[in-house]
């Protein structure tokens, strides 16, 4: 039996019911979100069930939505069933004031570096991570560069002097 989006959807709603508010299929890839306290329950369910077996964590990243008050940061997990070659996308949202999300390092060893990277660029605090510190940027950096908190370049500015290169 092939692992269709409908089947995954049915298994998830049997288990979690209304706690998963909605499903989308952008470009054919099943995408859903859950409350952030439930991220490990959902990941464990997808990992353990013999008919689901999403046992490869392709990627963790974050997205900053400055307009969504209370749920500014999304943490996105991409999961892969290597046997049936099916991929799904799973999101949790968190407020930016206290961006605490449980770590997935207990389930996926590969989550270690990916969560460090997500922390480095977006400041998501992965609760329980064994070594949550910056990975790509310098340790002294005191901000999270990929948050949309910085103005885009002003095209009308006149102080640019390419001859002197600003030095």
């Amino acid at each position, binding site marked *: 039996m092939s692992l269709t989006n409908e089947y995954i959807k049915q298994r998830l709603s049997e288990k979690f019911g209304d706690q998963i508010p909605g499903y989308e299929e952008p470009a054919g890839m099943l995408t859903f979100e859950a409350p952030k306290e439930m991220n490990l329950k959902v990941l464990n369910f997808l990992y353990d069930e013999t008919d689901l077996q999403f046992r490869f964590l392709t990627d963790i990243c974050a997205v900053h939505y400055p307009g969504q008050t209370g749920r500014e940061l999304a943490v996105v997990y991409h999961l892969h069933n290597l046997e049936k070659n099916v991929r799904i996308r799973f999101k949790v949202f968190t407020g930016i004031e206290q961006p605490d999300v449980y770590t997935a390092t207990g389930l996926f060893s590969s989550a270690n570096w990916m969560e460090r990277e997500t922390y480095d660029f977006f400041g998501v605090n992965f609760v329980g991570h064994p070594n949550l510190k910056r990975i*790509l*940027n*310098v340790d002294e*950096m005191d*901000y999270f*560069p990929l948050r949309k908190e910085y103005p885009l*370049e002003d095209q009308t500015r006149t102080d*640019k002097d390419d001859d002197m*290169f*600003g*030095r």
Partner: protein
Amino acid sequence: MEVTPTHTGDPFPGEIHHTPGGGILVSKMDQVINWARSNSLWPLVFGTSCCAIEMMSAASAKYDWSRFGFEVARATPRQADVIIIAGTIVNKMAPVLKRLYDQMADPKYVVAMGACATSGGPFFYNTYSVVKGADHVIPVDVYIAGCPPRPEALIHALITLQEKIKSGMTREQIKMEKPENSF
């Protein structure tokens, strides 16, 4: 087709006096040493981005920088004479670059290849991670324009460096010879 080489470099420094059964060479030791140094520059490969592709091209058969004495590319700073900074230097890489430079044996030379190593290049404005020129970290002898520069430009820069070495000591070497002048 007759080929006239325009860039043959200086001949061996000194005068040869022919005498029966051989000859006598009159030269200056400094000039001979500079001549030897300039013709066996061993580059340290420090490719951090796309300029490294051009550097590999300059090293391989079509451009073949071994024609000018650069063929012994080293992967360790302790055996290298010139570091070719081929690519972007980010803040996290800057201490590594400084350390590599410090580990190189004197005399040592630096070529900043391309816009990133020269000035930060395309990352000059609105960056949170890029060093705006490798000369903020280590002293640079020769800069190459381009993004990335063609292999000819790299070879031209290395020949420029050879001429710089042949013409005397670099500023850093003079500084080291006379420590009372250092500041």
